[in-house]
């Protein structure tokens, strides 16, 4: 028995389903019944029940791409704020991909307080101690661009199914985006007007993340914005 419409906005404690269902993220089970744990959209597929949250802090998971800000240094690396209840650790060897003799090299030349870093989550232990790494090209210290912060819960919509929304924004504005799972996005572009347009699209997605047909509306808005002022 299902008690809500698919994609209906539900609130904590609201009964969603009763009987032989499996509960996934955003929901919990008591006896035979599955309830929502958060404000979000009920999402029922077959026997799977979940609630897509509309708010909430970012909790790091291994493999996530994140954008961090350096808030402190220690002898062998840096502490980064990753817009989460937990700070993350980045060791110098993970940043420069080689052994560094800490007695001979001054690591402050690599990163300073306030620097922005694109990184992947390498490890999260049971005490929520987080390690970062920068294994791919383009990861590491970021220069230029515009930093946008939105609710981490809305990031899946900015990416879209298989990155479809991201592709729309990039192709229509000619900008390049780095999207962190932790709610931070960097937009690079030569034309400041196009950068602003891309930011506007991101903010529109954040506002309307829970509505359907969003990709089409974003594409339309970007088309309109492009022709304006030409």
């Amino acid at each position, binding site marked *: 028995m299902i008690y809500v419409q698919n994609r209906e906005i539900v609130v904590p404690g609201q009964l969603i389903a009763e009987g032989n269902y499996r509960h996934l993220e955003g929901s919990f089970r008591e006896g035979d019944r599955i309830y929502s744990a*958060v*404000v979000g959209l009920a999402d029922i597929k077959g026997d799977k029940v979940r609630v897509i949250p509309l708010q*909430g802090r970012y909790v790091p998971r291994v493999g996530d791409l994140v954008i961090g800000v350096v808030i402190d240094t220690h002898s062998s690396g840096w502490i980064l704020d990753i817009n989460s209840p937990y700070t993350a650790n980045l060791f110098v060897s993970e940043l420069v991909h080689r052994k560094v003799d800490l007695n001979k090299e001054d690591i402050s030349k690599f990163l300073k307080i306030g620097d922005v870093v694109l990184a992947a989550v390498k490890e999260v232990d049971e005490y929520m101690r987080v390690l970062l790494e920068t294994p791919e090209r383009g990861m590491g210290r970021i220069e230029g661009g515009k930093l946008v912060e939105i609710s981490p819960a809305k990031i899946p919509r900015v990416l879209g199914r298989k990155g479809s929304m991201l592709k729309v924004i990039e192709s229509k504005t000619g900008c390049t985006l780095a999207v962190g799972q932790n709610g931070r996005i960097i937009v690079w572009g030569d034309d400041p007007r196009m950068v602003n347009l891309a930011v506007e699209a991101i903010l529109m997605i954040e506002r309307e993340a829970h509505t359907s047909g969003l990709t089409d509306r974003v594409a339309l808005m970007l088309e309109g914005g492009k022709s304006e002022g030409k």
Partner: protein
Amino acid sequence: MEKPEKLIVDGRRLDGRAPDELRPLKIKAGVLERADGSAYVELGNNKVFAAVYGPREMHPRHDQQPDAAVLRCRYSMAPFSVEDRKKPGPDRRSMEISKVTKEALEPVLFLELYPRSVIDVFIEVLQADAGTRTAGINAAAVALADAGVPMRDLVSSVAVGKVEDTIVLDLIKEEDQFGTTDMPVAIIPRKKAITLLQMDGHFTKEEFKQALDLAFRGCEKIYEVQRQALKEKYAIKESG
């Protein structure tokens, strides 16, 4: 404040309500920009804000819990919120209210999902007319949900009491001051579980049961307004 001659006349209270009637209640979710979650509650003449920050890093570190988040609550009254100016800063009353508020909210939170972190709840009473702690709890529950903190349910709260031998719901200042009994209650509506109970005054066993019934009925109504406030915040029209 002068004592009115009678607090209940022909079954009507000073503000015209029936004994089992709630004051006008207005709740809005997501009213503050900086907070992770927030809510504004007007219950009669009470005006209360609640803000939630977190889960965030816990300082000082030695207060961290290795396997769960810590909930911290701070109830505070603006200096202009009462008849005589209230000196700013915590006093014994507000510290006790902060404690019972925390204990009223804790049972519904999945704190185990955020080890070592802290969830801060700040309640600010801007205008007070009895029942500020219940209004604060109602606001805090909505603000926690608005912040995306996973919860088993909301928490709803109301005061009941005895005024001239009548059991009444949701006391105003005059009734609180000159009535016989004041009993603030908070419940987890879905489970009918009580998470806050304080009482001063006098109840017989029968009156206590009657008052509790009334509190449950009042909380049901508040619960509905809380749920609506959360749903309304996201019921935004699509652009274009």
